[in-house]
């Protein structure tokens, strides 16, 4: 199979081809966006397997719903919106599952104690820091969490976030303000406990 010449075709062309049922347009569109969407979903879900599964589902949905894409927003933000909505859905289901089951403790002592890279102490510190960040993000409401992830894992501007999430600019600003404040409180509590 000849490699797709990604740069020569615009996202809009690819979306139009998807809408017409052309499956060959999938690979170049995925090549452009899958890494970015993976990081978005990983920032939201905090678990690489879930993130990859959601990215996969997002592209399936993109293909099946390409006909509904009206071009009023670019394909990139549209794909991000699909991925965020699926991530929110997955996150909520995972939360319900955690309520039934005892929280699963990821046993990564082996990787913490591995001799590659930082030493064991540094590994423990890094892991604690990561866990604190996970908890702080976990306590945010779904949309605030999405705003934080789009800003700090995708480097989006306020306008881009508003477009991606279909929110007003003022709502994005206040969501970000509240989210950072909540995260500050959670991180502070974690340090003090």
């Amino acid at each position, binding site marked *: 199979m000849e490699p797709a010449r990604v740069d020569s075709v615009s996202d809009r062309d690819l979306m139009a081809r998807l809408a017409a049922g052309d*499956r060959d347009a*999938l*690979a170049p569109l*995925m*090549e452009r966006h*899958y*890494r970015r969407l*993976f*990081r978005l979903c*990983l*920032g939201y879900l*905090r678990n*690489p397997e879930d*993130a*990859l599964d959601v*990215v*996969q*589902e997002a*592209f*399936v949905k993109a*293909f*099946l719903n390409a006909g509904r894409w009206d071009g009023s927003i670019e394909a990139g933000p549209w794909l991000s919106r699909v991925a965020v909505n699926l991530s929110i859905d997955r996150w909520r*289901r995972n939360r*319900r*599952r955690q309520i*039934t*089951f005892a929280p699963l403790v990821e046993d990564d002592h082996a990787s913490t104690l591995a001799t590659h890279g930082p030493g064991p102490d540094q590994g423990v510190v890094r892991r604690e*820091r*990561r866990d*604190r*960040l996970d908890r*702080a993000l976990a306590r945010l409401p779904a949309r605030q969490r999405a705003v*934080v992830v789009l*800003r*700090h*894992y995708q480097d989006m*501007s*306020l306008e881009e976030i508003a477009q991606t999430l279909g929110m007003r600019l003022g709502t994005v*600003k*206040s969501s*970000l*303000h509240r989210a*950072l*404040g909540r*995260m*500050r409180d959670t*991180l*502070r509590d974690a340090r003090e406990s």
Partner: protein
Amino acid sequence: MILAHLRMRRRVALRAAGLLDDAEERAIAAHVESCARCRREDAELRAVVEALEADPRREAEPDLPLDVLVRRVELEVGEALVPHGRPRWWLVALPAAAAALAAVVLVPLVLEKLAPTDPAVVALPVPSLPVEETEGALDRLEHNLAREHAARYLSEARDVLVTVAASGVDCDREEGRLDVGEAPDRSRALLARRALLVEEEAVASARAVLDDVELALREVAELPACVRRRDVERLRDEVVRRHLLMRIRLTTRELEG
């Protein structure tokens, strides 16, 4: 004055997030200098942003090559485009709809029956029934656990089936064969778990999918790690024809509530 200060605090957060233009930045910097509370807030929020921006997940790479992901997506798309032979989704949707209808119709009737009509009874405190309540709670927990176990099993089975059906890595050992890695071993482990799944009304809506998945896993369990391409294609066609991946997704969601 207070409102102006609150607006400033919101801008302090936007400043920490790196979202102010130069003019706003200068204005807010002057305010922060003169306001001890805002200065503290500014430092704390910056620490949050630093923690976020130091997260290695920002630069993480997916643990799956693009071509494999493309094949997986194409497989699911292909499945979705195949016309439904039998509308199996009814098997998931109907029991859920029936349960919802029953809840809407029956719950008010039951509550009406249970509601005390005698004013004298109303005045009395309702006796607590700790034993029944505990049993009820345990039943609900068991019900939820059965559904969660089934959902997890299906989710993992789905991953195995996708791995095999979307396999495109040639085997080193022989030409015309594909490497399906640990999928047969994983199938055998899943089949052992399938035997432990509780067969009761909690997972009744999923039974048809569970049966089809079991058949597919049995086929995968029989495969060697290095499989003839046509065997993989036959399995893929079967998965697509039965809309198995989509049905697993729908059923898993239904089980997870």
